């Protein structure tokens, strides 16, 4: 665990936490009695939670690394977008600031969990080698990539849940689910904004059939087989509604195929 790196991360994430950290640090320097207080009140305690996690299964560690790589991608994307003058109209700034805040928090969380095992942050190319030249140039391009990243993130986390079912990994499973549903909240609002600015009401907060672009992000979302059985037609509802009601997983391989063009 690199505590200095962790503190840097926390600084970017949570000013209030930084205050607590500084308070606790002062206490610990001023008084030997402060040590226990600091452990209870600062990110060190988080690290200690995950130090037990050296009992996590190797498979779970791989899930964390995979998740962190995706969170790096999202975090860097929103940092760049939120920092670029004139890219995001004022009315939408609170939305993307909130999404960006969460992605930074997810990065800090996963880095803390992995400690020295955390993978290096890759360099990213948000034009995907020139195929999406407007990702950081126009609001449409930015929202388009935002919704694609968020929908990918939802499917990616969902695809890994089954790898976190060992008894010692159960705490990680719960944290992963807690991130997963936040990514889904992000996806819903990014999709709503995309539908609004493109005047395309058929782009809803939920995914209809396998409609959407890039196609690889939505491949298989038209699945109607749940629990091993085709439920198309259930309750007399349309196939559109049935596919909207269930989000689908993506395998790690499918996610890497989507993400790889964004690695510089």
């Amino acid at each position, binding site marked *: 665990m690199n505590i200095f790196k962790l503190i840097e991360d926390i600084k970017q994430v949570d000013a209030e936490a930084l205050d607590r950290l500084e308070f606790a640090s002062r206490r610990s320097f001023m008084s030997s009695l402060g040590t226990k207080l600091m452990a209870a009140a600062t990110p060190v305690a988080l690290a200690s939670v995950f130090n037990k996690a050296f009992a996590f299964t190797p498979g779970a560690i791989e899930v964390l690394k995979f998740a962190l790589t995706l969170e790096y991608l999202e975090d860097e994307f929103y940092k760049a977008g939120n920092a670029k003058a004139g890219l995001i109209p004022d009315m939408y700034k609170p939305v993307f600031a909130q999404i960006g805040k969460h992605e930074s*928090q997810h990065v800090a969380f996963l880095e803390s969990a992995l400690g020295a095992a955390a993978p290096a942050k890759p360099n990213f190319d948000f034009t995907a080698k020139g195929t999406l030249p407007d990702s950081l140039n126009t609001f449409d391009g930015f929202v388009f990539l935002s919704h694609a990243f968020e929908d990918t993130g939802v499917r990616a986390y969902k695809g890994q849940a089954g790898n976190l079912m060992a008894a010692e990994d159960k705490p990680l499973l719960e944290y992963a689910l807690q991130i997963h549903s*936040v990514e889904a909240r992000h996806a819903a609002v990014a999709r709503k904004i995309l539908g609004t600015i493109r005047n395309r009401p058929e782009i809803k907060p939920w995914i209809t059939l396998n409609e959407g672009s890039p196609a690889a992000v939505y491949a298989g979302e038209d699945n109607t087989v749940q629990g091993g*059985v085709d439920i198309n037609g259930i309750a007399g509802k349309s196939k559109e509604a049935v596919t909207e009601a269930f989000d689908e997983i993506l395998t790690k391989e499918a996610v890497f195929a989507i993400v790889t063009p964004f690695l510089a």
Partner: protein
Amino acid sequence: MLSDGRRVLNNLFTAMNKKNNFMTNSDLRGGQMLTRVNRRYFLRSAGVATTLGVFVLGACKDHDIVPGIDGATVDLGEGDVGILNYAYALEQLEAAFYTEAVAKPYAGMTDMEMRMLTDIRDHEIIHRDFFQAALTPTGMIIPGLALDFSSVDFSSRASVLGTAKVLEDTGVAAYNGAGKLITTPDYLVLAGKIVSVEARHAAAIRDLLMPNTTSFAGDDIVDAQVNGMMFGLDRATPPKQILPAVQPFFKTTLTANASVFQ
């Protein structure tokens, strides 16, 4: 527990093969009526599915005014089946709420709001009927539950959307908190497939109430803490805390006495 799980999946397959016969006419409290009908049906006979459609329609007339067991106590049961019953109970609540909200639109409901609430209604009905189909053949399905929406003013936008917000946020926290209790991998994935749709609903409803603010994933709800700090985590709330919170919406008393819930 695993053998329970496999049995449920097998039973699901059997039940779903009959879907054309019993999965119709379920928008208006159909889940509850069908539950009763299906339980009787499966107890009586496993065959002659073609007659079930007629049977259901007849039963709907008979039981039109009986939405569920009033004042009774229902225990969710043990193991993965208990968790699925828990999800089924929450989906019954959501499906019935949106069915009512769409049937009696509040004053000034925009076309966009109507489309959105109708979509969500359909998703919740699909979830409810999916769980019903999965659970019915086990013989351990909970019955249709009597609901209480007396706290909701369906003529008021604020009341309807405010209730929707609470129900969706609660659903997200409930599924997140139930995940680690599930032992059958296929069920965990199924819960994952549903919870992200509930989170999409929650974000959409919140954005209707406070458009283009941080509310869709607000600091008031994405507020789970790890050692006193927030890390962009939604809530994960155990069933023992969810059940008392949602009990006011049920006339049926729900209990979760089995070890899986302890």
